[in-house]
């Protein structure tokens, strides 16, 4: 029987062929995720250095990123999500299993034998929607990979920001220590002036108050250093108790930024949440298309039955089970699919606007920080250095006193603190711009920002007894 022969072919070959198209990748899509991340400017270690090798040196921003990729527990959780997606792909590429039925029915008629029925049935609607479902599952898996890569990049960006915050806190703290030292020296001097009978109790108390405030500022700074180290440690997946260190260099901002239009275009291509949302909408559009025709199918079951009648006659042949869409045309499925697509398209529109505005805001943030760096570098820092130098000249000519000199030195240190803060603000803003654009901004190549710090050997006293003997 020709029809029977074809039926078996359809039943056996088609599912196998389709299942072959939807193989689950052996790495569960990890390589694709790595590629997405690498395409966005983050270096993914293929055969990278081991963790303990990375931690022997003070961490640079790039080394810290490597540590995050290797060691951040949250990233492992994100990557684990790929397994769910792979499971969906697997499931979508498979038909429901065929069912087998058998019956042994004894007749009570005399002389009649047992009716034996053997049947096998295959849910045929599944077979019809299989290619569409497999395609959608792949698209959803792609969306998932984008989403996972996006999560990884968000974590890397967080780590980069945490890194700069910690470096800034450390550098600022060095300055606060010096400010506190200047205030402590003013108190020490004031005590000498007071002991000599040259200043009154009030003036001494004022110096003590100023020094105490500087101490508090220093302690508050120490707490900030601890907090930012803890935040960075969490992202690095390391213990704060460990001996790992960060490199304290802060590079000056590069000469130029990329043009805004370029960054906006880049964001439209590169933002992984946008890519994922677009893919998701595509999937839902496909699903709607499939629902439009598949809802008429209802449940279709194709089967084959072989029956041995009680009289010994043998019956065999295909069976079909069809749902008649008389009372229910599964319009609910259609409505759900339409609504879901509508939601996704609206979400995509909102996200697109958010991305565009986000890029502009982040770009403005970068430019603002950069402008502040320039004001510090070109104006405030040299001006404060001048104030100190000119005050020193006035002290040399006995036109003003040592307390004012220490005061202006503390002001200069405060300006240096602001400068370092603005440089780290710049790098943080740049990391945020990378987040907004969806791609890491090319790495810094500026000169490191250094603050003068007089050498210890300048501290020898060459003059203390000068006026004593001719």
């Amino acid at each position, binding site marked *: 029987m020709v029809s029977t022969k074809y039926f078996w072919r359809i039943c056996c070959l088609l599912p196998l062929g389709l299942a072959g198209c939807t193989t689950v990748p052996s790495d569960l899509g990890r390589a694709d995720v790595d590629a997405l991340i690498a395409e966005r400017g983050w270096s993914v270690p293929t055969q990278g250095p081991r963790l303990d090798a990375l931690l022997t040196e003070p961490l640079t921003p790039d080394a810290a990123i490597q540590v995050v990729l290797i060691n951040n527990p949250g990233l492992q959780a994100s990557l684990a999500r790929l397994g769910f997606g792979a499971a969906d792909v697997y499931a979508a590429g498979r038909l429901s299993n065929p069912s087998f039925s058998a019956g042994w029915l004894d007749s009570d008629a005399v002389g009649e034998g047992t009716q034996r029925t053997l049947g096998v049935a295959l849910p045929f609607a599944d077979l019809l929607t299989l290619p569409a479902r497999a395609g959608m599952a792949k698209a959803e898996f792609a969306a998932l990979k984008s989403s996972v890569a996006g999560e990884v990049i968000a974590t890397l960006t967080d780590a980069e920001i945490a890194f700069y915050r910690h470096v800034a806190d450390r550098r600022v703290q060095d300055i606060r220590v*010096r400010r506190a*030292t*200047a205030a402590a*020296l003013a108190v*020490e*001097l004031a005590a*000498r*002036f007071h002991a*000599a*009978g*040259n*200043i009154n109790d009030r003036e001494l108390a004022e110096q003590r108050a100023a020094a105490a405030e500087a101490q508090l500022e220093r302690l508050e700074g120490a707490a900030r250093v601890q907090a930012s180290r803890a935040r960075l440690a969490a992202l690095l997946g390391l213990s704060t108790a460990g001996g790992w260190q960060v490199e304290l260099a802060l590079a000056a901002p590069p000469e130029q930024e990329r043009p805004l239009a370029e960054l906006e275009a880049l964001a439209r291509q590169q933002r992984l949440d946008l890519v994922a949302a677009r893919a998701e909408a595509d999937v839902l559009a496909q699903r709607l298309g499939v629902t439009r025709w598949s809802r008429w199918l209802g449940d279709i079951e194709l089967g084959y039955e072989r029956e041995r009648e009680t009289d010994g006659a043998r019956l065999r042949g295909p069976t079909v089970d069809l749902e008649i869409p008389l009372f229910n045309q599964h319009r609910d499925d259609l409505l759900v699919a339409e609504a879901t697509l509508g939601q996704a398209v609206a979400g995509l529109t909102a996200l697109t606007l958010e991305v565009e505005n986000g890029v502009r805001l982040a770009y403005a943030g970068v430019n603002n920080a950069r402008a502040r760096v320039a004001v510090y570098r070109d104006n405030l820092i040299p001006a404060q250095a001048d104030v*100190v*130098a*000119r005050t*020193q*000249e*006035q*002290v*040399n*000519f*006995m*036109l*003003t*006193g*040592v*307390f004012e*000199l*220490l005061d202006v*030195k503390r002001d200069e240190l405060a300006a240096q603190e602001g400068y370092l803060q603005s440089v780290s603000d710049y790098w943080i803003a740049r990391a945020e711009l990378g987040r907004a654009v969806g791609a890491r901004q090319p790495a810094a190549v500026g000169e490191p920002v250094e603050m003068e710090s*007089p050498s*210890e050997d*300048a*501290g*020898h*006293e*060459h*003059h*203390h007894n*000068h*006026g*004593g003997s001719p």
Partner: protein
Amino acid sequence: MTSRRTFLKGTSVGAMVAAVGSVSAKAQDAPRSSAPPSQARGYRPVRTLNGWTLPFVMKNGVKEFHLVAEEVEHEFAPGFTAKCWGYNGSTPGPTIEAIEGDRVRILVTNCLPEHTTIHWHGLLLPSGMDGVGGLNQPQIKPGETFAYEFTLKQHGSHMYHPHADEMTQMAVGMMGMFIIHPRGGETVTIDRDYCFLLHNWALHPGTYRPDPSIMQEFDLWTFNSKVFPAIDPIVARSGERVRLRIGNLSMWNHPIHVHGVQYFVTGSDGGRWPQRQWRAETTEIVSVGQLRDIEFTAVPGDWAMHCHMAHHTMNAMGHGIPNTLGVDQTGVEAEIRKLLPGYMAMGEHGMAEHQEHTDAGHHPGPANTIPMMTGTGPYGNIEMGGMFTVVKVRNDLGRRDYDDPGWYDAPKGTVARRVSDDPDFGNPVRKT
């Protein structure tokens, strides 16, 4: 409008050159009066310290002088300059000299950016010539030239200065002296006749223009707009009769002390007083707006002559800075130097060490700032500034020699000497 340059070129260069005579190599301001040519003019001309006398032109029996009010680049001491206002290129302006009974016409050209006038301080003249802007005359606007003309009814030492925007114009140096010699000569002959004006300046350390808003806390104190050691010495031959005519256009009184002599206060802008009114003094306060003549017979030696307000004999000083006297900064100084490598503790044992630092130059001061203490004499640092100069009297000086004769070579046995360097030397009586 006549610029200062064309004015000098056109009308008076020749006259000035004639008047300059022998210019000392140390001269700071180019034109200055020559050694007096005896009584050739009918009077012995004054010598304006670091200054000069304005030549005149006779026109129909009137002595015509021409003053130009203008901005000048003034040097208080070598290397320390400021944008000041003055007359004919200098502050103070040139000294006007004439004789009692002369008819004088003084042209005043205003090359300043604002109006001005000149008040002839102490002169007896018609009200309309008295120079108070708005009261006696319209102010002289920028670019205008006014003529003052009057007959000199008196003799004596006088001054001129603006009576328009006085706070500004006097604060930045507009002033000059007006000397009227008695017709018929002096009753007691004067051999050397010096004049100078006392003034104060708010030239804050590091700035280049005097600040007219300061009323008391001045930075510089000057004789004829110079500070020691840039002030000319008073040079005389032993036994000569020396007169100093000292006017005060500053905002403080100045007790002027001359070492080595008892001088007589002999006159003022009221003229030379009758001899019975002369007073023997060694210090005379020349009050604000006042003028005093003092006379003495020169005694050989180098003698200080200065305002006795101690801070008026200092250059730029800090006002109310922390008092470091007796403050031991050992240890702290080294720590401070770690933050401020240029820091040096000073003043623990007094300020005398200061001149050594500033002279050595290893701890530079603000730009355009004259150190508080300057001057080096034959025995060490003089540690002075401001209103301080030296009366240098020598036996062997020519009658017309006004050049600085150098340091006094004291006769053997007449200089204070060290007899011990042991602090416990001798048995001084102390109050118990």
